[in-house]
Each structure stands twice: as C-alpha cells, then as structure tokens.
C-alpha cells in the first residue's frame, strides 16, 4: 500500500502483512560489560582493585563489598590459575548419557581474589587433580560474542 493509494474501506488501513525488524541489546552491567568486552576484543581478563582492602575483584565489581568504596582501579589479570575443585558431567540436561563426559572446574585465578566455573579440556578426566595449574583458552577472535562463552575452556599449563 503506497502513500498515494486511496483507502476505500477502514480494513484497508488496518491490515499490514510483513515483519518488523527489531533489535535488543543485553548488557551485563557496567563492570560486566567492560569485563566481557575486554575478553572479546583482547582475549584477557580485567579486574577491579580496592587498594585499601587489598582485594582484586574478578569478575569485576563496581563497589568494594568490604568498605563500599567505588572501584575505578582496573587492572589486567592473568588468565591462569589452579583447579580448586572439579566435576565430571556424565548426563545432559535430559538425563541422557553424554557421548563424551565433560569436565567442569572451579578455577581460582593466581592474580585475583576469585575465580570462574568453566569447562576443562585437553585432558582426560582421570588425570585431573585438585591444585592442577590451568590457563584459559579463548575462542577465535571472530567467534567471540562478548559473553562468558568466549572462553572456550581451561586447559592444563
């Protein structure tokens, strides 16, 4: 229906078939966005630091949970650490056996007070042990989406 088309019946003006394109954008908050953008663009971790309390927040936070001061000290932290604990997942969400078990680990980072729960790969489940040194493997630059999944997994150093 063009603008010059003459409307002869009210229904003509009320019917429109087609798709309306819309876009939405999800953000993980100010600190979270900066953390994920750094991973996406540079393949490295950022943390915030409270110098007074000597705490390095990774994933970063905007406020110190001890002294409540605003944190604007951002530092790069190494993407390596050690396995604090791990699990070998045998079943998928539908309780069906996985073709290959997957390892999930809680990795505490060397340069920060905190860690991440993520996959562990390039190792057999029976060879994993608590305290094992690991590093993050990032996805190829053009595959990164700006989320926690831009880390493909951790692997033994």
């Amino acid at each position, binding site marked *: 229906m063009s603008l010059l088309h003459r409307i002869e019946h009210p229904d003509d003006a009320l019917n429109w078939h087609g798709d309306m394109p819309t876009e939405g954008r999800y953000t*993980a908050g100010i600190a*979270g966005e900066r953390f994920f953008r750094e991973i996406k663009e540079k393949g490295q971790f950022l943390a915030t630091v409270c110098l007074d309390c000597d705490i390095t927040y990774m*994933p970063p936070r905007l406020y110190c949970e001890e002294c409540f001061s605003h944190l604007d000290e951002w530092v790069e932290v190494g993407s390596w650490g050690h396995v*604090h*604990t*791990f*699990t*070998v*997942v*045998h*079943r*998928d*969400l*539908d*309780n069906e056996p996985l073709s290959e078990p997957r390892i*999930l*680990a*809680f990795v505490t980072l060397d340069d920060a*007070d*905190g*860690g*991440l*729960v*993520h*996959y562990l790969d390039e190792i057999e*489940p029976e060879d994993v042990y*608590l305290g094992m040194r690991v590093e993050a493997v990032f996805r190829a630059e053009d595959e990164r989406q700006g*989320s*926690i*999944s831009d*880390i493909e997994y951790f692997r033994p150093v």
Partner: protein
Amino acid sequence: MRHPSEVDCAAATEIMREVAVIGVGQTAVGEHWGISLRHLALEAVQAAMADAGVVRADALYVGNMLSGELEGQEHLGALVADFAGLRGIEAFKIEAACGSGAAAVRMGYVAVAGELADIVVVVGVEKMTDTLGPDTTAALAMAADADYEAAHGASFVTLNALLMRRYMHQYGYAHQDFAPFAVNAHQNALNNPYAMFRFPVSCEKFSRARMISEPINLLDSSPICDGAAAVVLAPLCEARDPSMTTVRVAASAVGTDTLAVHDRKDPLVLAGAELSSQRAYEGAGVRPADIDLFELHDAFTIMAALSLEAAGFADRGRGLALALDGEIGINGRIPVTTMGGLKARGHPVGATGVYQIVEVVQQLRGLAGENQVPNARIGMAQNIGGSGATVITHILEQS
C-alpha cells in the same frame, strides 16, 4: 536523620506480636500430570484452613519459583486467592528460588507479628513436571548467576558436585560416606503418606546409583516433582485450641550470600546459612543443643552436610561425621529430614519451605506417627535458595 543503629530496637520489639501456626495442609508430592497448579494450591490451602478451623483470612502469600517459566502463569497471588474462595483479600507471590516457600512464610510472619493482618494463609506450590527435563533444569539454573555461571551450562547439579568433590578432598571422605543422608531420608519417607519415594535405600544401592556429575549420583539428588503445602498463621493470643498443642513461631530469620559460588572466599562455608541460623537462635533465645529436630535443605547430600555445619550442629568438616555416627536418625542427637526431606519426600522447589514447616508442626504436635521424635519441643526448618544465596530459618516451639 538517625542512623538505623540508633533507633531504639527494644521499643520496636515490644510492639511485635507473638505468632502461631494454627493450621497445616499438604498434597502428596509426585508427578501430578492430571492436576493443575491452581488446583494443587487450592487443595493445600483448603486442608490448612480446615485444620485451623478458619473460613476467612486477611492475606494470602504464595511461595513459588517457576510458574512463569514452566506454566506460562504468573500473578499467582490473585489466581490462588480467586480459586481458593478468598477473592478480595491481599495476595501476592513471593520468589526466592528454592527458598520461595519459607520466604512466603517469613512474609506471613512479618504481617501477623507487625499487626498488619490477623490470619494469613501461606501456600507454597510448584509444578515442574509439565515440561521436558531440559526445560525444567534450565529454568532451575536461573537461580544461579546468569552471566557468569549459567551462560555456559553450569547447573545446580554441577555446582553442588564441585562443592562435594572439594569437601571430600579437604576433609578426607569417600563418596559412600554421604550414604546415611539418603538412607535416613528414604527410611523416614516410608512412613510419610505424602512422600514421593516411599522405598528404602541401602548403602550398597547408594554407592551403585547412576552417576550424573561426579561425585554426585542419582541418590545424592532430590527429584523434580509437583506439590503444594500450606500453613495458617495467627496471633498466638488467639490461637489456643484446647484439643491441639499450640505451635509458636519462636524465630523467623533470613541471611544472604553471594549469588555466584565463585565469589565466595571459602565455597564450603554457607555464610548465608550461618547468618540465618545465628539470627534465628538469637530471635528464639536458644542454642543448637536446644533443637530437637532439624528439617534441613538436603537438595543434595553435600547440602545436608554443609547445613549441619552452618547451623552449628557440627564443626567444619564434621557434618558428615555426625551422619556417619548415626546421630541424624529419629532417635539421634539431631534428627533431620524426619518425613523424608527433599531427597525422598520430594523437592517441588517453591513449595519445599512450606512442607518443612508443616512437618515440624506435625512433630511438635506429636502427630508424626512412626517418625515421631520423642519429646520434640523445639524444631527448626531451614530452606535454601540457589547454592546458599538465600537462607530462611524458622524455629518453632510448643507453647
């Protein structure tokens, strides 16, 4: 402006009313494919109101976690009030993940204690089996940190498995050492007509169960299921039914912790549960040794061990030893999951916290049948949301 700590709290406590649980009701826990969410809630509400001998209420609080995601239905307050014949009263839903049920009880307590309502009905209801397993598990994972934990596939099974492995490593336990929690829960469920799993489990069966996420196997875990439970709260001064033991809410307390497990200084310490328990003990003026039974949140066996420690019944690393020493049975030092717990009664998430209160009331009234804890006078219920991020504790006492 006065700082909150300068406010005279003593004056504030004086105006708080004592609160009693005057009625309880529950539906069987299971897979209720033939019953809708509103009908489940209605059954529990009617049973509790009949038990209390009331036909009206001032407010209705509905504990529920997943109705929007799994049933496409939110706005449960008005819905349940409408279908339970309570149309017109104050009503809304309260959500705190798996702690939603006790959170709703907490709000009911606040309303009655603060003289905002005289009779409050609290119902916890959850329907989890109308959807396929992956959808239900993914919905449950919404209680974890969406950006950092759940986005790449960590679920509550895997998060608890991480804690369990660390616990075994740090304190030197084997997987089979966790068996007493499952064995005890299933044993107690045998005598609970409302329980989902009414069959015994042996240590051997526990050890041989299907592995899900090492070291957690099927018998470490509570089931996905449907159910509803309800309580009626009223001022203690108006709750003297001569035919029944009166049960007073001695304390109602909440504690919180980081949402994500990776943000905790020591993941094996449930700091939120410690806070919640301490606040409850202070509120009731009791110590752990005074508690005659403890309905704890055994979503996984590791949670049972960590809860016992956080609530002060065992030192760190000794919660499991308490179970191994045979102290968690009906005649033990601290009986837990006396009607089957989350493991065997079942864990319809948003309803669980209310089931726990119902069961403590049964014990304190001396109506727990075969599972009656001898001389039970003070009982505690603790409901946990997420991996310990929200913890609601209630202490109930014979009055």
